[in-house]
């Protein structure tokens, strides 16, 4: 039976053209926590105790410190590239905090906060960023393209939006195998313009995949502001069109993020269906260290959002709860700064991956033709050892 037919027939019948406008659909926005740390009257809190709250806050602090230090390291020329998530940390840390460790996280590239919450270690972040031989990704991708199968964090791929239909498929597999698992799929409002967004959401809806689509609407895709990205009512309005349960939240409100994702997880598992959450936030930093936002937006605009700092908001809440104090806070940030600096010094001295890693993992085994190319390369490097100093000394 085609159940869609019923939906069409439920519509009001009109006899003159009667247009509807997406903007006329009022999309509520969930806010729980105010900037001063007080909770809105009548707000329903997520499931969170002091232990979880402290862990979340420490992760946020780690995120902030790592980002600040790595941008500095990049400016000093110690690192080729970096991307911060300044101002958006609550979306990823809060998301991971609301999930179970077995849930898959598929990020776009600005989701290191989720990986931090899962327990990816400082030195693991460093090893990836410095492309050294201890990097799980074997030095193959630019900085911040993290991944860990142990922590159920899918390795980041630079092409935008490709993870969206993949998340639908991954979650569908989880459902078929009867697992108590969902997939969360992060992407930006810019990536939501890619064709893969449509493909992924529609397939997830049609096939009932327990996936949480989490849009970080941070206002910018590199230099392109969201008003040049779409004309509809954000990304949330599209969820309605796909027949997906839709929720818009304040992305700088960690409690709203946790609440929304906790609810979405329960719903996705119980109903075997996707959810889309649109978190309204702002990319306070540059797109990457290769970008300079002063060319396309004003300081005033940035200042408005600096006043909405999600980390400070959570700190204010913790202080109000009496779960945290200023001394602890100073000690935390100070300790983190030292740890990060020390970790940079260690990671940058670790050797690059062996030359062999150039040809492994292209396939399950190295096929004959690539083996031959590798042997020729080894002979060539031995002939010109000075021209390839990083690898030549380590060749047998």
């Amino acid at each position, binding site marked *: 039976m085609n159940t869609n037919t019923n939906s069409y027939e439920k519509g009001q019948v009109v006899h003159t053209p009667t247009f509807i406008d997406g903007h006329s659909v009022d999309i509520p926005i969930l806010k729980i926590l105010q900037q001063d740390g007080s909770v809105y009257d009548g707000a329903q809190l997520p499931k969170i105790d002091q232990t979880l709250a402290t862990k979340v806050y420490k992760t946020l602090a780690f995120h902030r410190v790592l980002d600040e230090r790595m941008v500095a390291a990049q400016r000093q020329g110690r690192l*080729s*590239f970096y991307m911060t998530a300044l101002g958006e940390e609550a979306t990823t840390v809060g998301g991971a905090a609301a999930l179970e460790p077995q849930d898959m996280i598929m990020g776009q590239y600005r989701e290191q906060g989720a990986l931090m919450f899962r327990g990816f270690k400082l030195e693991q972040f460093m090893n990836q960023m410095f*492309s*050294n031989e201890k990097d799980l990704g*074997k*030095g*193959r*991708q*630019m900085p911040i*393209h993290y991944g860990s199968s142990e922590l159920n964090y899918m390795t980041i*791929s*630079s*092409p*935008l*939006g490709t993870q969206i239909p993949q998340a639908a498929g991954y979650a569908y597999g989880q459902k078929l195998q009867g697992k108590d698992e969902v997939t969360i799929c992060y992407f930006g409002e*810019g*990536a939501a*313009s*890619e*064709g*893969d967004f449509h493909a992924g959401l529609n397939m997830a809806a049609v096939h009932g995949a327990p996936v949480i689509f989490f849009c970080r609407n941070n206002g910018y*895709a*590199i*230099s*392109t502001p969201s008003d*040049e*990205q*779409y004309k509809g009512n954000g990304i949330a309005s599209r969820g309605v069109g796909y027949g997906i349960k839709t929720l818009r939240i304040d992305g700088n409100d960690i409690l709203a993020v946790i609440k929304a994702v906790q609810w979405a997880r329960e719903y996705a598992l119980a109903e075997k269906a996707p959810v889309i959450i649109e978190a309204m936030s702002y990319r306070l930093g540059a797109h990457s260290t*290769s*970008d300079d936002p002063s*060319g*396309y937006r004003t300081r005033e605009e940035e200042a408005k959002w600096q006043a909405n700092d999600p980390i400070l908001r959570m700190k204010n809440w913790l202080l109000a709860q009496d779960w945290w104090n200023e001394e602890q806070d100073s000690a935390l940030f100070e300790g983190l700064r030292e740890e990060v600096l020390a970790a940079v010094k260690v990671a940058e001295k670790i050797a*690059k*991956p062996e*030359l062999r*890693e*150039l*040809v492994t993992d*292209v396939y399950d085994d190295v096929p004959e*033709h*690539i083996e031959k*190319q*590798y042997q020729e*390369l080894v002979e*060539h*490097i031995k*002939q*010109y050892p000075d*021209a*390839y100093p*990083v*690898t030549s000394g380590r060749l047998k």
Partner: protein
Amino acid sequence: MAQMNLLQAINNALDIAMAEDDSTLCFGEDVGFFGGVFRATSGLQEKYGKTRCFNTPLTEQGIIGFANGLAAQGSRPIAEIQFADYIFPAFDQIVNESAKFRYRSGNEFNVGKLTIRTPYGGGIAGGLYHSQSPEAYFTQTPGLKVVVPRNPYQAKGLLLAAIRDDNPVVFFEPKRLYRASIGEVPEEDYQLPIGKADIVQTGSDITLLAWGAQMEIMEKAAAMASEAGISCEVVDLRSLLPWDLETVANSVAKTGRLIISHEAPITGGFAGEIAASVQKECFLNLESPIERICGLDTPYPLAQEKEYVADHLKVFEAIKRSVNF
């Protein structure tokens, strides 16, 4: 003449094209106000307005589909794909639409006014997804033209030719050279021919053939060879589709030897096509096997980029092998 880097030469060509024809449009991700992430379209929105130079939503398939529509309508779209690594969502629009629009309609409709600009190639520590050279995927697509300039002078003349060509052209820009390559460029309008190779240096012992950023490598290897007493003829193919077999074959007939080099992986790369055609044309002239010095058959690496690339030392070794065969 003015000193320009490759980006400025491209910007200058776009400026000329937009000034001469009101139906010429430049668009792509961050192309408008910001002038593109590499600033190739810098100042164009200011000069020609938001309706002719603009940001698009972040959708490559949308950009090229939109451009196909504009070209079919009679406008002259110059679409930018931010990195060639990100051209693949638009592959269907390019391969099945741009390339076949004219043929399938019996020329009732065509998108000949379309130009697709995209930065390609390695050497910027870009790893897998900011380094690829996907030209060969497009050279197997009849209906397209594929052009790759090697320096600012070539870039301006070839881009103007591409924009005015009445066929869809994919124009690959060597991003490693965007600011690194600086040279004399006439400020006035000029075109360089699509489909014609350019003999960069004449020589008698061996022909070195490449395109784009790889030309620097070939010239460097030729200089090393010269010190070893080997005379290299260095040829820039410039246009891969169509490509100038005549110039290449004449050179090989003279030198008897050929090395082809590209950044892309060797298997299925365009060097294979050239080698097959040249051996047929020049079978009796060849003194040694045609060699290909290319990327390995792996994705483009990050940590081992230096080892991976087809550098001047690998080309130089191939030159020695070839002359000593």
